[in-house]
């Protein structure tokens, strides 16, 4: 199974645990997790060379999830990293804001099921390079 590092951002420890448990059950990849309590904490812990995929809540203290997404996407080097909003915000306006202007890759409403995760992020995960596969070729080794 593909090995990936996921940054999971939620101010609720229980929700972070539920996201991580659900990702384990979804069997889309073998995940290593980095946890963050809000957008600011996530920005401090975010290393584009180490993080393969991001799961971000919307409503959080200090810095919310949508501002975090905008900050990450403002750097063109981060455009390839999938960002999945996992949020209780269910309005069409919020979904359009996240997926359109801010640049999130997918939008999952709480509460979600393992099947929701598989359906909404399966394709995204397939497109992320496997961290357990060593790059081959001179230029790939040079770039890694």
């Amino acid at each position, binding site marked *: 199974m593909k090995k990936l590092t996921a940054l999971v951002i939620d101010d609720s420890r*229980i929700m972070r645990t*539920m996201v991580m448990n659900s990702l384990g059950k979804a069997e889309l990849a073998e995940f290593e997790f980095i946890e963050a309590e809000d957008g600011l904490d996530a920005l401090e812990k975010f290393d584009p060379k180490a993080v393969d995929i991001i799961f971000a809540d919307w409503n*959080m*203290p200090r810095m919310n999830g949508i501002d975090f997404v905008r900050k990450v996407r403002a750097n063109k080097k981060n455009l390839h990293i999938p960002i999945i909003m996992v*949020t*209780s915000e*269910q309005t069409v306006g919020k979904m359009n804001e996240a997926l359109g202007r801010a640049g999130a890759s997918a939008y999952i409403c*709480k*509460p979600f099921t393992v099947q929701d995760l598989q359906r909404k992020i399966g394709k995204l995960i397939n497109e992320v390079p496997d961290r357990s596969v060593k790059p081959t070729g001179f230029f790939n080794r040079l770039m890694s």
Partner: protein
Amino acid sequence: MSVMEPILEEHPQLICVRDAVMSTFAMFLGAAPAYTGILQADESREQIVSILSLVGERTWSLMLHLPRATAEALALKFAGFEIPFDSADMGDVAGELMNVVAGSVTAHLEAAGIKAEMGLPTVVSGSDLRLPLPEGLNRVQMGFHSDDGPFSMAVTEGDARHVARRSES
């Protein structure tokens, strides 16, 4: 404290809240809870209360009241593992339940042409809780019954988060 007339049909936002509570809890519990009608506030039991404000054309607050036994049963279904009532994690669960209900409320309101933005939840717990509200504030408390026990959702005009802060002090 005055109480609004319990005629939900005259208050579309109350219907949005009732429907959001029923659909959200149906997702957690597998079956929709029964709406049992407007309650007189019962703050004497040991319970956890999650409060969240909605800001928009009107500012109002939602207060989810979970008696201890109901909270423990819901937490088990929500998180998938047992969570002690007197733990920070129980506050986390109550806050998240409130968040999800409020997300559904704002979606129901949007469909009804009413704009509202969610705030962050504040949680307070204990026995014999007194949640003082300012004089003249309109408040309706809707009762529900699920297989995991009773609970209620109060809708209050204005921002009621200070109630929790006052109760904690």
